[in-house]
């Protein structure tokens, strides 16, 4: 009796799973999960936005001053402590402090922070400012002020040469 019921429950779960899994991302969506970007046209101090997995990715060519500023912040001042060094390391463990690559989606509720274009407000910490609920990020994309709980997410990326970076 119990065995029959248990087996029946397993069967019901097995039937339910395809219906639930059906709503997960499809193969064609997953196939677009890597992109390659040529970073040579991005001058020092500039940033570009590229689209990856339907989301904006910020690629910023940081100035010396911005790098220094990011490295100098003590961990105790960060709501989500993370060293700048760690945020500019690619999957081959190579550190390139001049290139900051992040998903441009505010970790609060998914808006796109401002700060990539020349005239944009960059917030109090010189990085990015989210216009939705006022989160401010520093020059390493780390959350400093506002409701967002986490730093801007650094995706997995790999510099295949000095000019070419593969994201994803």
């Amino acid at each position, binding site marked *: 009796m119990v065995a029959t019921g248990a087996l029946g429950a397993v069967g019901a779960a097995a039937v339910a799973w395809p219906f*639930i899994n059906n*709503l*997960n*991302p*499809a193969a064609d*969506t997953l196939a677009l*999960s890597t992109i390659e970007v040529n970073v040579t046209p991005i001058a020092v101090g500039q940033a570009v*936005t590229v*689209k990856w*997995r*339907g*989301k*904006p990715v910020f690629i910023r060519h940081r100035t010396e001053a911005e790098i220094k500023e990011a490295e100098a912040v003590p961990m105790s001042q960060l709501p989500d402590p993370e060293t700048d060094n760690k945020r500019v390391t690619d999957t081959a463990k190579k550190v390139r402090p001049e290139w900051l690559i992040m998903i441009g989606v505010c970790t*609060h*509720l*998914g*808006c*796109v922070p401002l700060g990539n274009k020349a005239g944009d407000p960059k917030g109090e910490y010189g990085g990015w400012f*989210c*216009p*939705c*609920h*006022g989160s401010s990020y520093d020059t390493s994309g780390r959350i400093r002020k506002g*409701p*967002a*709980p986490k730093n801007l997410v650094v995706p997995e990326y790999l510099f295949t040469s000095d000019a070419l970076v593969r994201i994803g």
Partner: protein
Amino acid sequence: MASSHGTPPVFNNKVISWIDHRLPIFSYIEKEYHTFPTPRNFNYFWNFGAIATVMLVLMIATGIVLATNYTPHVLMAFDAVERIDRDVPQGWLIRDLHMNGASFFFIAVYIHIFRGMYYGSYKAPRELLWILGVVIFLLMMATAFMGYVLPWGQMSFWGATVITNLFSAIPVVGESIVIWLWGGFAVDNPTLNRFFALHYLLPFIIVAVVALHVVALHVHGSNNPTGIDPKGPQDTVPFHPYYTMKDGFGVMVFLIVFAAFVFFAPDYLGHPDNYIPADPLVTPAHIVPEWYFLPFYAILRAIPDKLGGVLAMFGAIAVLFILPWLDTSRVRSCTFRPIYKWFMMFLVVDVIVLGICGSKPAEGFWVPLSQLATLYYFAHFLVLLPILGKIERPLPLPPSIADAVLKKKAV
């Protein structure tokens, strides 16, 4: 009347009695909507159940017609809606009815909820009736949210992004849930497509829950402004023609206000940004949900912690489920509750204040104000309601509904 309640009706028409003998739909209508004994002292607040039903039917009818011309694809949805407005015969009318209908459905339901709270309609033995009502409210919110995404304007897209991201606040599994909801790595075509499917499905589930709501209502009958139970035929009138006619009049008045918006200010309750096609790379300066979500949006933003804000927002609705057990008073109606009556009115003001806070940017004095209003909202249900029921001395109740009506007439 009460006496005719138990005896099956006799139908003179042969066809009707043949059908009724096999499927008693005519007996059911006769019993539940004709002779059904209903308290004789309803005020106009009791119209809003019927009004909400009319709005539900209107939303489904206009929605089905709109769906025949809509295309749930990110590249075509915006233009499809504009084509309905411009080229489909009287498409503008159907769309204006549907988009303003959502607002007016919520207006009717909010007044209906207020009536239930003010007159204690949620109290025993109507707890399940009330809970079914809260379920309908939740389903309405889900349906309205997904419907707002379909025109694929800027507010559609960013509203969907902000609201689906709420689930990412759930520890550990949050991210996977959000990706599952989206069917991708952002709000995109799969999201729009499934929202359309669900937006079409949910209203029929609402109809089913409304049916249960009505069945539960007819077990013990309606509450009334005095909150005391009918004691005999002198306290009730048959539902038809007394309340069918009164509801009919109320529906007409409501529809006049509705028509004023549909025909003379169709975009007043909407947001101009939703006439800008969705752009995933540009966030509007200020994202606001539809007005009927604003009080809950204000609660979400009032809490400075992400998970806390999400929990508070859902808690604001969850608390309604346990309302029947939070109220410790032995009388139902606020008419006889001299203190709670004012707190109840203050709750209405509080929710309106929350709504205004929700429409403003989260800065300056709106932040502490929305926090204060959120605090009162929860204090009202979790502290004031249980305590007041114990310490408040209710006014003397009239001996019966008929007495209450006759006394008022004498005054």
